[in-house]
């Protein structure tokens, strides 16, 4: 006779299966494990536990003979995981030290740019992330949804110098580099890019602790136009990484379970209802996948062509909030599909499904 606690332990790992299935099958499946267990076994092996959890999650999707359902569920889990991770990292950014005010940052900029009068030139940011220079508020919803979502980004405390000669600009940059070295900053080499025949842009990034500096020099000698700016941002707070991983796992699981509910709910239903929910959800996933694909490609290109001490946040990699209208439309279609799936079944449909579940 096996340890009576062993059955309870096996039963615990059936949590991955839907409740109805557990009610019907738990005794039988646990009995097979107990029959197969060698004498003296007190608890399930890791392999057995993983086997039950994974097959339980598969069972959550219903449609036992279907293969595409697993592909759709995996896609849903990935998308939900990524978007939840992005939201979690945004929350984690709240743990970052606030940006310095203009007054607090002035001594730092004065040290890096000696010989320049910075009076009234240093500008602070009202928030860590801003849209059109202001903290995000409900008044920006329209901007975010209708084309200007890309304006939401890092705020910074910075200073800009204009009217320098080319020689002054080179000297100022060299001095700043020396000051960065002396001040213990970790700095990149200047990267020069020529955007057209008349314009040269030089960027340099530096980091010390959670302070990140970006130097941006725009040179258009033909038009006697020189622009030299230094901006200070915060480095990604360490909490963003565990928050992102936790968000990914929680979101992926939630997405899988939600998809499983809808899949089981629509299993064996009228063809019209199934076609409607499939179409709605198919379009929704396209609306989520397209911005994410564009975001990943665009951000990868951006990171490769510019020097960064701070990765752009995950939501930007997912095309958010630049393409938030598509995301919101996808959510609306998914909710509509879920509402259709939640419509009550007809009694005869229940009978048909009961036979299928055997």
């Amino acid at each position: 006779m096996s340890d009576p606690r062993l059955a309870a332990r096996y039963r615990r790992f059936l949590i991955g299966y839907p409740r109805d299935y557990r009610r019907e099958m738990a005794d039988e499946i646990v009995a097979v494990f107990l029959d197969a267990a060698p004498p003296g076994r007190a608890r399930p092996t890791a392999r057995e536990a993983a086997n039950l959890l994974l097959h339980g999650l598969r069972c959550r999707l219903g449609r036992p003979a279907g293969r595409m359902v697993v592909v759709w569920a995996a896609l849903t889990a990935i998308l939900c995981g990524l978007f939840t991770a992005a939201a979690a990292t945004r929350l984690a950014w709240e743990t970052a030290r606030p940006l310095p005010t203009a007054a607090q940052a002035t001594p730092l900029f004065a040290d890096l740019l000696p010989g320049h009068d910075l009076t009234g030139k240093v500008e602070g940011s009202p928030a860590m992330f801003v849209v059109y220079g202001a903290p995000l508020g409900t008044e920006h919803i329209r901007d975010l949804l209708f084309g200007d979502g890309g304006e939401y980004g890092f705020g910074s405390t910075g200073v800009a110098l204009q009217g320098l000669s080319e020689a002054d600009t080179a000297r100022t940059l060299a001095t700043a580099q020396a000051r960065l070295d002396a001040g213990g900053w970790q700095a990149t080499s200047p990267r020069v890019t020529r955007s057209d025949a008349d314009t040269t842009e030089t960027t340099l990034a530096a980091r010390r602790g959670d302070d990140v500096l970006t130097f941006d020099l725009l040179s258009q000698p033909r038009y006697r136009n020189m622009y030299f700016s230094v901006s200070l941002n915060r480095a990604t707070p360490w909490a963003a990484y565990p928050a992102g991983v936790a968000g990914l796992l929680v979101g992926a699981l939630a997405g899988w379970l939600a998809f499983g509910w809808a899949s089981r709910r629509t299993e064996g239903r009228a063809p019209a209802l199934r076609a409607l929910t499939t179409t709605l959800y198919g379009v929704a996933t396209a609306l989520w996948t397209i911005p994410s694909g564009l975001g990943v490609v665009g951000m990868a290109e951006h990171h490769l062509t510019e020097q960064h001490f701070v990765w752009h946040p995950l939501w930007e990699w997912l095309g958010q909030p630049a393409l938030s209208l598509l995301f919101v439309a996808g959510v609306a279609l998914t909710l509509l599909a879920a509402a259709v799936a939640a419509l009550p079944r007809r009694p005869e449909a229940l009978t048909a499904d009961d036979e299928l579940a055997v």
Partner: protein
Amino acid sequence: MREPTFLILTALAGQTRHGYGILQEIAALSAGRVTLLPGTLYTALDRLAAQGLVARDREEVADGRLRRYYRLTSAGLTVLDAETARLRELATVAETKLRALRPHTA
């Protein structure tokens, strides 16, 4: 058809079996090479039931443990028959080629 599926159908050919009985028979048929865990077995049985290849037969309680028996349906028998013929043809072709390679040892 994957090997575990083929073995499950074979285990049920001619005899109803409960879950543990199927696992034992699969181990015996494959000389211990294939051992399925119960989670895998029941996912496969659900799939085969949905395809109409196996069906629940009866249930009993032995030593306080619930045992449900499964049987092969006529559709399951047909599929197993077809798969067996396909495997036999493949094996025959392979044997013929191997004989040609090793004429003295065949």
